[in-house]
């Protein structure tokens, strides 16, 4: 009870409320502009949180995450272009509704569905987090290694259609992590005598470069080549009727369950949840033929599911320290920056901080509801800002943000190099998400692997000596094996 009252005091302070609202609005704006991702928004915002207390700082990051997931529906409905990959499924019925003159109902329904999905997953997260953490607290190095390896394998396997490309990306991320001072032996690795490199490739610097710079380059290339999409003039969001919601309440509950469950699996995330929920809604509808022509359930299902992912992804992040997607990887960076080490021990050492995060997420959804219903015109205005001017602003923020992390000019150069690296990877169809997650999880993976072998005096049997380790290693093998089998089957059919 003490922890709860402390958390309420921290999360409901003026600073924290302002930070949550700011983060949520920034997330909504980044989410609503096609091409700008909330992972990029998070990476750019982290440096701004340095001077803040931990609760407002993390509330701002969580607000951005939640807002970004919701904001994508605005351009999906109004322009027919998904603001984020998670809102791609919303285009199918949201945009036809807008073309029929029902944009306000579609936008209002999307907000209600998003809020419902988000709050549902928050409740599930609150119920499950401590249980998962309590189960994981007995894990030793071998079990943690197997768990992280499983997380990485799902991320690499599901991030791209080709598992080989996903694995290449994950391996490249792990290789970047190797550079710097080895934390077990204190030996510099591949630093070539460069002092700034001894601290390694800074995670946030790499994220800023890899998420933002490829986008900036793409916008610069498109400038003058692509006609801007016309944006409607008068837009407002109108709440759906009670009857419309009541009729779809059971569907919303099922889609919220799908979203939360999918979100809890590392490497899956919003787009998969949204498409699964959309498909589920169509298959179980009495009028499947209406889907794709402006059916309200076609907006409700993906929007509920993609927002339910937010609580789901936070379960492995907070209880096990495993981020499920690039956005939660940045949040992990933010948690570490403010002295919170996610994992089972977090519940023993920082219980009030966790409760404060719950409250912050709930507040973020209230802000979303208010901002989207009454401030939708502002987001439409943001959509009118020329993308190339936004890209120039992003360059400045990238440079200043990466400098502010350690007050190091070296980091700014590194950000530029990582940005170019990210662009080249995208051009050869190697996904960026596994690179970032390899960079995030690599240190734990190597540390636990070596610690386990030191404990077992070099015997690899330690990795098959406990049930959790065997289960996670088997799941890893299954994930990779299933992906390879699917690829081979597709090839032989072709």
């Amino acid at each position: 009870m003490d922890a709860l009252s402390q958390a309420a005091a921290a999360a409901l302070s003026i600073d924290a409320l302002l930070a949550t609202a700011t983060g949520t609005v920034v997330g909504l704006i980044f989410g609503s502009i096609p091409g700008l991702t909330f992972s990029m928004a998070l990476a750019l915002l982290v440096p701004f949180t340095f001077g803040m207390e931990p609760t407002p700082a993390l509330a701002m990051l969580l607000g951005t995450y939640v807002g970004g997931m919701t904001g994508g529906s605005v351009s999906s409905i109004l322009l027919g272009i998904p603001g984020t990959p998670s809102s791609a499924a919303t285009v199918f019925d949201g945009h036809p509704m807008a073309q029929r003159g029902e944009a306000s109902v579609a936008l209002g329904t999307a907000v209600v569905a998003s809020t419902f999905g988000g709050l549902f997953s928050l409740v599930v997260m609150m119920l499950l987090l401590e249980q998962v953490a309590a189960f994981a607290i007995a894990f030793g190095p071998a079990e943690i290694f197997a768990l992280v390896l499983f997380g990485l394998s799902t991320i690499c396997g599901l991030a791209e259609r080709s598992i080989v490309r996903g694995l290449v990306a994950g391996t490249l991320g792990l290789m970047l992590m190797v550079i710097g001072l080895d934390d077990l032996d204190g030996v510099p690795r591949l630093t070539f005598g460069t002092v700034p490199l001894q601290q390694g490739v800074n995670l946030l610097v790499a994220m800023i470069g890899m998420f933002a710079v490829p986008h900036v380059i793409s916008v610069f290339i498109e400038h003058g080549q692509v006609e801007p999409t016309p944006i409607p003039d008068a837009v407002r969001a109108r709440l759906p009727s009670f009857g419309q919601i009541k009729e779809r309440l059971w569907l919303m509950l099922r889609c919220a369950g799908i979203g939360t469950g999918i979100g809890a699996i590392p490497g899956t995330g919003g787009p998969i949840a949204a498409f699964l929920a959309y498909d589920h809604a169509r298959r179980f509808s009495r009028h499947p033929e209406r889907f794709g022509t402006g059916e309200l359930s076609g907006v409700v299902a993906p929007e509920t599911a993609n927002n339910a992912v937010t609580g789901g992804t936070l379960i492995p992040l907070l209880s096990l320290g495993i981020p499920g997607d690039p956005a939660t990887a940045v949040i992990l960076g933010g948690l570490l920056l403010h002295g919170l080490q996610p994992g089972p021990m977090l519940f023993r050492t920082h219980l009030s901080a966790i409760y404060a995060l719950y409250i912050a997420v709930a507040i973020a959804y209230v802000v979303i509801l208010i901002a989207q219903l009454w401030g939708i015109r502002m987001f439409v205005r943001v959509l009118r800002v020329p993308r190339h001017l936004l890209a120039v602003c992003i360059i400045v923020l990238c440079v200043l943000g990466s400098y502010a992390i350690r007050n190091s000019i070296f980091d700014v150069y590194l950000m530029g190099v990582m940005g170019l690296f990210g662009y080249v990877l995208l051009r050869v169809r190697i996904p960026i998400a596994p690179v970032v997650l390899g960079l995030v999880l690599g240190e734990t993976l190597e540390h636990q692997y070596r610690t386990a072998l030191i404990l077992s005096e070099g015997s690899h049997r330690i990795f098959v000596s406990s049930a959790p380790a065997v289960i996670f290693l088997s799941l890893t093998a299954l994930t990779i094996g299933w992906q390879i089998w699917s690829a081979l089957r597709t090839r032989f059919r072709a």
Partner: protein
Amino acid sequence: MQLNRVDRWLGPCLALTALVWLWLCYAYIPGARSEGEPGPRAFPVLLGIVLAGLGLAIAVSAFAGSGSTAAESTEAWTRREARIVAATFALLMLYPFLLDKLGFLIATPVAVLLALHGILRVRSWLASFALAAGLTSACWLFFVLLLKAPLPRGAWFL
């Protein structure tokens, strides 16, 4: 461009990168201090081997013409794209240099003007100056006044 053709040089490039990586690991990272203990070199070497294997798998699949992604395609590089990528990278290298030497208040508007006129070839100088001045002021207000984050003042002026 067919993705299969991209893979024909991507696979060997990855394998070559892995070989260089392995050489660097053996040349610059010390091995284990005692038997049975994986030293600081073990993990990087393992990663090099994995990358080499993946690179070979991509190359073999591409040259055999049976890559799972053979039917997919990716856009070929154009001269315009190469120019913009090179110019953006040059700007990302020049901006921190100017930031270090001339300080934030000079480097930022210069970088904004270079981006607008050097890369994007925007014609309106008035709008460019307005954006440069507005963005610099907004960043200064936010970083320096609000967040109290020190921004470089310029080594040449110290």
